[in-house]
């Protein structure tokens, strides 16, 4: 019997297949279907910290617009006795999700400033989440922001959240740091229970007809897994924190590669959006089949086996490998021309 179980942020999971934050967890039915399809844990869709704030401001502005101006209409709306302007809806969702499924529920908080993180994190813990994933998406565009300041922002958030809650805190970050490994080490030192590698860098597009910059959210492709694979391979064995791979996890082989690089879990989103929730089961079956064929007994057995620490050629994760890769590419190009 093959043992697929793994540990992530102290949680014992049946398999390393976790559903990452996505619209699939918007509804309780969706969460149930993810569990039924074999997800070993679910990261709920993200609570956007700025969105809550913007909604508060917008509601305040809209309800006040035009009031106390005209004798016949000193207001335009009934006074709602109680608005749920904080994360109440999200917290309620956590509670209902916990009641609906038996697998761990990991809440996700997305933001870029310290803002309301601590308060929201505390409320998320009270609502019963098994863990909290902090998705820190900060795009440094101000030329006056030094790398140090940018990094400090991440550290401040993690420190604030860790000091507010006792549940495990995973930190989802981007790979774009001067030294990703150093950043990972510092987050680890602050007590981050996991690093989730990586959040997607959403790059806008241009609508040529309208001459407008438009948001363009593309689903990941299997090629995207190289980035997390690289860094998980490098970081494995060097940190106390768990490592979660996300981006580009589409099939059984992707999962196996990432586990071998050192991931504790792999997270799926685009593949499920594209193929349906049932795809989880086929990935799991694929992993089992591969392990059977290659006579692996457990996930633990393969975890980190191809990391920089344990792989046959550690330099492959470094510049030497890059040199080889570039040369190899040149060869392909030139031989192509000659042909």
């Amino acid at each position, binding site marked *: 019997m093959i043992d697929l179980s793994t540990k992530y942020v102290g949680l014992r999971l049946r398999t390393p297949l976790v559903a990452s934050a996505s619209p699939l967890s918007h509804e309780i039915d969706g969460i149930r279907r993810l569990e039924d399809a074999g997800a070993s844990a679910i990261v709920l869709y993200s609570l956007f910290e700025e969105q809550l704030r913007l909604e508060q401001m917008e509601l305040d502005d809209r309800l006040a617009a035009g009031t106390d101006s005209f004798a016949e209409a000193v207001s335009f*709306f009934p006074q709602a006795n109680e608005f749920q302007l*904080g994360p109440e809806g999200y917290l309620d969702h956590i509670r209902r999700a916990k009641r609906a499924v038996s697998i761990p529920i990991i809440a996700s908080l997305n933001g870029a400033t310290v803002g309301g993180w601590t308060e929201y994190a505390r409320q998320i813990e009270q609502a019963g989440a098994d863990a909290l994933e902090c998705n820190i998406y900060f795009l440094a565009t101000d030329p006056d922001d030094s790398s140090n300041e940018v990094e400090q922002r991440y550290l401040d958030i993690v420190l604030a959240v860790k000091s507010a809650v006792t549940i495990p805190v995973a930190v989802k970050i981007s790979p774009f740091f001067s030294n990703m490994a150093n950043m990972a080490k510092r987050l680890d030192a602050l007590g981050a229970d996991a690093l989730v590698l990586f959040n997607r860098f959403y790059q806008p597009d241009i609508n040529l007809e309208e001459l407008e910059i438009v948001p363009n959210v593309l689903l990941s492709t299997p090629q995207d897994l190289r980035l997390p694979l690289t860094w998980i391979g490098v970081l494995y064995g060097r940190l106390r924190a768990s490592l979660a791979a996300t981006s580009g996890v589409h099939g059984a082989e992707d999962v196996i590669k990432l586990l071998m690089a050192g991931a504790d879990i792999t997270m799926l989103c685009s593949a499920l959006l594209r193929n349906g929730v049932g795809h989880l089961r086929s990935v799991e079956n694929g992993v089992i089949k591969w392990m059977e064929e290659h006579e692996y007994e457990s996930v633990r057995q393969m975890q980190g086996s191809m990391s920089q620490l344990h792989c046959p050629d550690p330099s492959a994760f470094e510049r030497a490998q890059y040199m080889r890769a570039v040369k190899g590419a040149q060869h392909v190009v030139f031989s192509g021309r000659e042909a």
Partner: protein
Amino acid sequence: MSAKRKIKTMDGNEAVAYVAYRVNEVIAIYPITPSSNMGEWADEWAAQGVPNIWGTVPQVMEMQSEGGAAGAVHGALQTGSLSTTFTASQGLLLMIPNMNKIAGELTPAAFHVSARTLATHALSIFGDHSDVMSCRTTGWAMLSSNSVQEAMDMALIAHASTLESRIPFLHFFDGFRTSHEVNKIEMLSEDDMRALINMDRVFEHRQRALSPDHPVLRGTAQNPDVFFQMRERANPYYDECPAKVRTIMEKFGALVGRSYHLFDYVGAPDADRVIVVMGSGAEVAHETVEHLNARGEKVGLVKIRLYRPFAVKDFAEAIPATVRKISVLDRTKEAGAVGEPLYVDVVNALHEALNHGYGKLRTLPVVVGGRYGLSSKEFTPAMVKAVYDNLEAAPPKEHFTVGIQDDVGHTSLSYSPEFSTEPENAVRAMFYGLGADGTVGANKNSIKIIGENTDNYAQGYFLYDSKKSGAMTVSHLRFGPQPIRSSYLVSKANFVACHQWIFLERYDMLSALVEGGTFLLNSPFGPNEVWDHLPRIVQEQLIAKNAKFYVIDAYEVARNTGMGSRMNTILQVCFFAISKVLPKEQAIESIRKSIRDTYGRKGEDIVQKNLKAVDETLAHLFEVKVPEKLTSTVEMPPPFSPSAPDFEKNVLGVMYAGCGDQLPVSAFPADGTFPTGTAKWEKRNLALEIPAWDEKICIQCGKCAMVCPHAVIRLKVYDSKQLANRPATFKSTDARDKEWQGLKYTIQVAPEDCTGCGICVEVCPAKNKTEPRLKAINMVPQPPLRVPERENWEFFLKIPELDRRDIKLTNIRQQQIEQPLFEFSGACAGCGETPYLKLMSQLFGDRAVIANATGCSSIYGGNLPTTPWAKNAEGRGPAWSNSLFEDNAEFGLGFRLSIDKQTEFARELVKRLAATIGEALAIALITSPQKDEADIYEQRQRVDLLKEKLKNLNSLDARQLLAVADLLVKKSVWIVGGDGWAYDIGYGGLDHVLASGRNVNVLVLDTEVYSNTGGQASKSTPRAAVAKFAAGGKPAPKKDLGLMAMTYGNIYVASVAMGAKDEHTLKAFLEAEAYDGPSLIIAYSHCIAHGINMTTGMSDQKTAVESGKWLLYRYNPERAAMGENPLILDSRAPTRKVKDFLNMETRFKMLLKSKPEDAKRLWEQAQQDADARYRLYEFLAQCKSKAAKA
């Protein structure tokens, strides 16, 4: 005040609703100013599950009209429930038929009326007793409250009394003055209510209920043999009613400690002169009596509490034996009567009292009557004194007026405005703010802080503008150790605050400041620079009054703290910091607490930004040492341009300056008729930014002009010769349209009329290719452009309009060249209604007659001092009138019938006079098709010729034809109103008018709520929308008015949304007007009551259509006549989900935040509604065409 009862500050409407809600089970409501708030409170409490005193939540139901509300109440009463309603003015009139029934059936009920003026020569939303006086014959008891506290007390006394007496009670209090005055009151407890409501009487009421378990027959028809006797059969109930009310009042006094009588006498026991009055004026008189008697006079006052049934004996006993002269004051006018109603009643009562020996008087005193306070006209102690003074004259003036200068009928009493009874130990403050800048909210909050946290009494009354954009508010606040009876405006203020710099240049606000008083100015200039920027009149008064002067840059503090345009917290802190009404630290702490209480439910960030504003304010508040010397060269400009006609300058201009009270009776027309084209004289300079045209980028599509709600963006095409002597910055370019080759083209903005809404920029499709953030029209700061663009605008106006015959109307690019005859309205900035009216005025305005239902469009269309309806160079333009709310379709049909009759008569006369005027002319006049602008032009030429000929003829026929000759040119009748009118209160009439087959054009400006009265739900309100009266989200879908109209088959129906497809809107307007029969255009109008960004209102419209939430279609019976499917569905199949639209608007989104589960369900149903409706229309549009083909 008793310690056990809560002390609160609230307005009269809330005070009344608080009681009425708790002692009733069925509440039928309908919005009407100023009573709407009572219904809103009831609806909100019911939505929140607040129970009445018997622990059950009352049923609250919005009806389609006040008539409907009264009917529903009647039904509820007949089946044994305790039931009430709230209304005013015309609404009360619509209840009269049911009121007669309810009284005739001896049914206990109480209605609460915030008494409001009845529309006569004009509508007025303000207060007087003309509405309640119209109910004297209904058989209802009438109970008057004079103050906010009394309004709460009398509400309970009314309900208790009606149960005891079986006579229904009309409880009334003065609209606005009491309904909207905020005052400190002692709340009645639910125990008080239980103690006063006699449950035995409630059970008897239940016993009388219609029930099949003990059936009876009520509501019979009777014949001459018995009707009369039965009418008299109820007399004992009326005879016994006053005594029962007296007993209730005594019980109330014993319980609560406030003592009321049927008639309350106040003043010297040996008074020689007495005033009889009811309503808030009695409080003013009370204050004046005490003041005068303290100075040795012997005067008195009788306050009428129970006006009907009029208890003659009680009245007589209330009057001291020493009284020799009585003045009866009526807050109403009964033209042609012996006197006003209360006066006539008092005279009769005194006669009867003397005959029966009631009371202490043994001879009939001199009794005179007078009118005061119509339409909330100020009624002050000075006027009360004038009334007493009049009684000393020999003989006293009879049938007088007070408060106005009547130089026509010479009825008015003169008075000294300087006379004041204001106590020295009270603080009086006036605040000038801009609507929605938070001034009123801050002041209400200050009253609450002082009223509920200290022993001081507090009063607030708020004056609003009649404009919906850029409106000024003036808050009048009083604080003091004694109860405040001063139900009149502050005229001598210790503290004046100007919260907006622009008002300094427009209003003389320091005239009310007392010697040594304090002036707070929100100023962009600091303490060292501000002095030289002040207008001369301000400097003069600050020096002369030895005033203390403070400045704060609240704009900057608001910016720094994220408060935006809201300065409520900032200026409230300033008031407390300077005025010292409370110790500063205590006041600031109270403000902090209040911020947490008020904004806590809106989110922590809102709380924090307000708290931050408190701290920042104190650091930015500075005292300015008032110099001794005048330095200013800034003069206050005249309200209207000197080039305006005399009437506009001397009457409308004075009103615009806020000095209408000073105009004498002779200044006005006798019948309420006013000139049009007057809004152009108001240069309101509201916009901080205005659009600027980039002629190099512009593609001349005309969309900016089309959507401009205020008609401030104008297009002209003209010969280059017109550019001679153009101002240096006047922009012009070559016209791009092929048909205008060789001509010049200009888009000009009216810089001082623009409200800065930005809709034009939003819809502009032309982008700057090198910098696409810029368009062909861009918002830029107004102040630097004000002078040069004013010059450009004046130059632009002088360029002749293009001949209408040369404009292709089916193409927006060309059509928008037409001159708008609806301009610069006071509608909200970014209004979604006005672009439709403007389009109509461009297309048909020079021959349009408009019947306008009461609502937003009648207010921005016809609220004095000015009107946006305008005239062209030939003096032609829309003729406009508003009759009522409920009758507008019928009113407009009347126009049509009248015009058709006169046209028919004119044509008959032309035939009769053909030999005299010339056969050819006669034939041409009669046969002209008048299908297009060229035809119309030619017909006008013929009519001019005809009139020339007729002037020289003396026959009766010729004179008659001259009088109706203009009717030979086709007239376009437009019936305009909102959805409240079309879907609800006016629907019966609208249906009838549409079914008449007559050639009227109905334009429904569909905002999906009663916008004008503050956003109450109508039957047009879509499912899932939160609105007043639908606080929990509207559960039912929107009524499909268009589909209902289509069932007749002979009505042109179009559903349009300009922001979705402007060409479609234009096409629908042209087809509707061209159709020789009834037309109905339902025009989606975004609205501030939707809780949207008004700048992007047109985008909301687009999304509404793309999601299928709003359909575009045209149903043209002429197509059916040609064998085609009359219905064309102009909407494509939805490309977006309904939730995409719902997410754009607070009216939908707020339900997600207050009732997420309900929202989810209703949002899903809204999608189903849209899907089903699209499928139905698609089926109708397709299936019929197949049939036609077959």
